[in-house]
């Protein structure tokens, strides 16, 4: 068992076979090639934790948690890069951006999902061929955003 000190999860234990290798890193973090998925099994939000840098983690979620109709196609070479020949057999994760001071504005990158071949332990962020999916899709619809924002304002006012 290996372990790494992380900023979000404290000391995180992992086995070698838990590591997902991103041969090209992740855009923005091209030199970080080793990651593990962590988080509670029953939670919709998981974390992709870098094991090259304890402070680096990305919140991820299955895109269908955000858009139940989510259905993409990707370039063949993107699948080949993770030793796969079909999207059916790979895991798909959307990177989430959650502003600490305004979580209701959370967005998901539905255009460029992370593909994981869990058997080969290979991952890659790809750009879907479907132009309709935004890089920054709101997770919450307008109504829910307004409600969450109001709740937060009321809560903060109550604490003062």
């Amino acid at each position: 068992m290996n372990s790494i000190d992380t900023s979000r999860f404290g000391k995180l234990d992992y086995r070698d076979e838990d590591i997902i290798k991103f041969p090209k890193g992740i855009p923005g973090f091209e030199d970080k090639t080793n990651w593990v998925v962590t988080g509670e099994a029953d939670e919709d939000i998981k974390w992709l934790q870098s094991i090259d840098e304890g402070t680096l983690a990305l919140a991820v979620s299955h895109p269908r948690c955000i858009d139940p109709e989510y259905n993409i196609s990707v370039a063949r070479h993107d699948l080949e890069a993770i030793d796969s020949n079909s999207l059916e057999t790979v895991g798909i994760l959307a990177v989430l951006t959650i502003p600490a001071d305004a979580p209701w504005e959370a967005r998901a990158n539905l255009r460029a999902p992370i593909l994981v071949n869990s058997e080969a332990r290979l991952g890659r962020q790809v750009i879907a061929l479907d132009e309709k999916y935004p890089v920054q899709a709101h997770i919450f619809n307008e109504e829910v955003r307004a409600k969450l924002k109001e709740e937060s304002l009321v809560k903060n006012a109550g604490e003062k």
Partner: protein
Amino acid sequence: MLVLSRKPGESLIIGDGIKVTVVEVKGDSIKIGIEAPKDVPVWRKELVDEVSTQNLEASSSPLLKGDILKKLRGGSHGQ
């Protein structure tokens, strides 16, 4: 960077099987045609940059407590 002058209708060949053609020049906008093998991805650079930028922003997301997650699970989705 290699810089070449081309006129509308003229093309460039890059490597094996990539052909870039200047289709039309109109004011400050240039229409470019690209013929490339299916396995060569062609993206607007802004899109590629946006993915990096979004990842960098995403890396400062805080750990969330249950509340938000429940709402996410409730299927309160929207574009």
